[in-house]
């Protein structure tokens, strides 16, 4: 006959295993990984390009479509390399 302690330990173990399997979730796709890397790159590039002139705008200021357009404006004005512009755009959209 199992003791109450052993039953509780068993139950806890079952719950832990089921939760961990649900936390693991699905593996990120290649596109999601690329976007995550771009976000980190953009966060590092922001102070080196944009902060030369102005502060970072608030994250809720714009829609993603607005950020696309503003980045075109800034890419031309500040002579941004296109890879830097893409990374900073990803950072601005997701922060």
């Amino acid at each position, binding site marked *: 006959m199992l003791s109450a302690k052993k039953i509780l330990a068993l139950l806890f173990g079952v719950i832990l295993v089921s939760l961990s399997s649900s936390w693991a979730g699905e593996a990120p796709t290649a596109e999601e990984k690329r976007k995550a890397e771009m976000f980190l790159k953009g966060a590092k590039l922001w102070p080196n390009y944009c902060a030369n002139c*102005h502060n970072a705008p608030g994250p809720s200021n714009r829609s993603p479509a607005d950020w696309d357009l503003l980045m075109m404006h800034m890419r031309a004005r500040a002579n941004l390399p296109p890879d830097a512009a893409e990374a900073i755009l990803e950072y601005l959209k997701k922060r």
Partner: protein
Amino acid sequence: MNRQKWVFGGVFLLSMLFSPLVLHGQEDIRALREEIRKMREDSEKQRQQMRALEEKLQRMEDQSAKKEKELEEKVAKQTSSWVDRYLKTQTGDTRYSLTGYAFGDYRWRSRHGNQNERINTFGAGFNPIFLYRLNDWIFFEGELELELEGTETEVALEYAQANVFLNDYMTLGVGKYLTPFGEFIERIHPAWIHKLITRPLPYRSTGAGGFLRFSEVGAQLRGAIPLGKLPGVETEYAVFVGNGPRFESEERGAPLENNFEDNNFGKVFGGRIGLRPLPFEWGWGRLKVGASTYNGKWNGDEWLNVWGLDAAYQKDLFELRGEYLGFHREMPAGVNTDRRGGWYLQGSYKLSEVPIRVIDRSEVILRFSALHQPRHGEIAPKPRQFTIGWDFWLTPSVVWKIEYDRDFPRGDKSGNQFLTQFALGF
């Protein structure tokens, strides 16, 4: 004894009678088990067949989609011209956006130098910027400038330019554009970006002795090119052609005028080349240096040449920037050359690490600026200005500024100026 025999016999008889039944029942169970096993096998076979059918269906759907796409592309190529294909938006949508900045300010200036006019006035300005995107490589930008002056509302077109990203390193701009000279005109002058209220002396409005108009009408080509393998080391460039310079008069020291139409069949050519020499991975901050030139005939055969050097350095909370401008205007025969020169040096420091509310959103700025030019009207020929400013950033793009200027021109009376401004970028 007899009784035991009868019991034994009865049991024996009963077992003989029921054993076929028992045997038959066991056979039924075996048969039933066999049937269940067969049914399971059949079920598994059917599941496998279903899976195979689903995979086949998916393959067929993928092939069908691919063929449909190939057919669409083929039809598009056959029916549309290369111009239509180029202009077709890549996302299917055009976009437009309104941004810009606005400000309200107060200025107080004591009577000094040759200027008899004291100033004690409020002012305001509104600069909407309209952005329109045709596709990923063509967009339009335009800025209006609305300011109050005297009894009028002055409306000006700051710039209106169509831009085309020709490739990763070249952007073509056509229209009215901010003059790509130095750093202040193109990148620093908007009220919500510029940390002070007044402009550095060489970049004041030309009516107050500035050296250049802020915009040209023409075309420019610009871009940035990486140098070497270390990220962050780049060169940037801009070359432009425009209608050319025009002065208010032929007098030495006269200010430049708007040049919306070429008045002498002579264009202006110029450009800026910049260098960002520090790689990101060194962690030494960000340094930008540049050299600019502006050359055009202003009157018949007389040339105007303006050249400049600029530098800006930023690391963490500290920033230092400065520019030098030289100005050489050929004059008609018998008149001395109109030579001018000016510079400014500005340093600022963000106080975000001070653990006191309000102070941690502040920034202090110091600037020194000077220039020399021929005397013209009431404009002091050799002004010098020391400026101290304090900015309080309510948000990253909303700022309240306070500024004090001490003017001590050479050969003229000194004076003071106090200004405060509330500016916001949107």
